[in-house]
């Protein structure tokens, strides 16, 4: 493709008009941050900054109706975690239908990079992220939060839910990759998802 030559005339002098437009924008923003809704300063901690519904804050472990964790200790989140900040120990539940649950579930919030991969990886929708983002502590040990803290509902109510698996493709990335390989290597296209 032949290159197109554009000639730019830089030998121009701006008139007063563009300067006035620029000044107007600056002045408008100044007034907005002083009196309007776009104020950059907020009265933290009484007032909290607004975050989006997909904000990735501190994790939440969801519960079953009886208050036990929905997590089945499959270690998918710990496997997906790029920061290796999730520590799980599995135990046996008495019900044969569920079998497995986490006796320990700890997240080192200082190691966590808040990428949300754990939420994507979870097959049970047992972990998602809240919009809680003001983490304070006096020691590193305090920043490793355990299962009970992760299941605290009050925090969730206070901050609201963040990144969670609501509008995900039901076919997870691994499966999509495998489907593509199957099509490429064997020319097989399984039927569309039944739902």
């Amino acid at each position: 493709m032949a290159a197109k030559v554009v000639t730019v005339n830089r030998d121009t002098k701006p008139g007063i008009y563009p300067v006035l437009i620029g000044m107007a924008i600056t002045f408008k923003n100044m007034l907005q941050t002083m009196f309007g809704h776009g104020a950059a300063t907020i009265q933290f901690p009484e007032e909290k900054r607004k975050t989006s519904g997909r904000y990735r804050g501190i994790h939440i472990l969801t519960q079953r109706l009886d208050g036990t964790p929905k997590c089945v200790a499959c270690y998918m989140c710990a496997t997906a975690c790029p920061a290796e900040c999730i520590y799980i120990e599995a135990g046996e539940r008495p019900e044969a239908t569920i079998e497995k649950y986490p006796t320990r579930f700890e997240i080192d919030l200082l190691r966590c990079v808040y990428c949300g991969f754990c939420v994507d990886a979870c097959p049970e929708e047992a972990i998602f992220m809240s919009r809680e983002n003001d983490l304070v502590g006096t020691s590193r040990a305090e920043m490793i939060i355990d299962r009970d803290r992760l299941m605290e509902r009050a925090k969730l109510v206070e901050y609201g839910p963040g990144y969670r698996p609501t509008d995900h493709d039901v076919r997870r990335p691994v499966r999509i990759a495998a489907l593509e390989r199957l099509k490429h290597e064997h020319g097989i296209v399984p039927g569309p998802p039944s739902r």
Partner: protein
Amino acid sequence: MAGIEIPHFCWHPDLPVDGNCRMCLVEIEKMPKLQIACNTVVSDGMVVRTTSEKAVQAHRTTLEFLLVNHPIDCPVCDQAGECYLQDQYMEHGLHDSKIQPEEKVRKRKVVDLGPIMLDAERCVLCSRCLRFEANVTGTNSFEFVNRGDHMQISTFENRPITHNYAGNLADVCPVGALLSHDFRFKMRVWFLEATDSVCPGCSTGCNIFIDHRDGEAQRLRPRRNVEVNKSWMCDIGRKEYKEIALDARVTAARVRGTSGWEGASVPTALDTLADRLREAGTASAFLATPQATNEDLFAFRTLAEKVGGMLDFRVGDPQDKVRVLEDSVLLRADRNPNTQGCLDQGLGRTGVKEILAACAAGKVGALVLQGPELLRSAEALDALGRVPFVAVMATREEPLLDRAHLVLPAAMWAEVDGTFTNYQRRVQRIRRAFAAPGSATPRWQMAAGVSTRLGTPLPAATARDVFALLARAVPDYAGLDFKTVGAGGRGLPAGPEQIATQEARA
């Protein structure tokens, strides 16, 4: 064998062919229908297609049938990650199930069969466990019950598995129907790293994998070796990994001072040992252990020859039990992995009784024990009391170590490189899976350290070098090195005893 992967569930290299899973269908020219690869005899000029459209379609159909009643359990199933069903679904299936979860046939879950957990829902009815029970252990614990969709495996009245090879049932099961109770919920398998090794539990020397993570052994698994253990190992061997992670490991050297034990670094402890051996000279005695590797034994032997003391290893007469089978499968009466190595290197010299007699007579100035076996024997108690200096290389803390004057921390089998020689005179390689705790050191290194202090260093920096020296010194091992021993081990020419037994058999 040609490197062509054919999907299968029921076929197992060490079990008879059953041909029930229908997963290995292949297209063969001039045959009207697809044939199962496992039970079709190869003939001249046969043209087999394993990835033709017809064959792949057959794999997919078979898999869909197998998955009709399979629960969606993968998140809680310990087999996930090493499950044939999972692998083959990702390879050939990827279909959406036509069956709703509620329509699936429910079967028994979480049935405790002692060392094994049974989950009948996950079973694909391949009958590998039945064939294992029938052909390897001869116990026939499992049978199919019910028919059609409701068919499942069961033991009679849910009785537990009592034989010593139950762990293999979890290994042969291609899915998560039979799982190890010991490994249950402990770890997801994809976190584990496998290191080739040899089981130290008895003189059979089953080839194994050490599955470990972050320096901790999590389980032992048999590694296939047709010459030794096929695909099996016993449950006693499987428990060997628990010894490694014990809290009560000896992690530092210590010397008995005037007021009891005093901690010492390994080099200072070796200094002390070298001084005592120099003083004692030929009035010293050395007891090797059949728990040690060939390299350990060689360095120990070299040291003993240098000092000129008495030398033996036969505490408890392991040499008489080396070839004695304890059951009909693998386990042998000699619970040491390397008694044959001791015999091959000619460590049975003075006789343990003679050494003890010399000790009792006060003729031994320094006694060096490569393992704590002698401390455990009751007859040796008096004799040991008369030796002014007893040094012991130990792996595990026990009160009996108080009978010694110097304790050296020894690394265990999973923490060292080396070789064991099994009852068949097969030299097999063990590999270092992870670091030893504290300042625990391989036994050959400590023996070599004492040799260095006595003025004749062993020209070796690694276990590989020691083995090279050994191969030059011991005629039967001539020409061997770690490379030629390889993953499967190397059989030595038959010794006189073996030839005798072969003749007796004939």
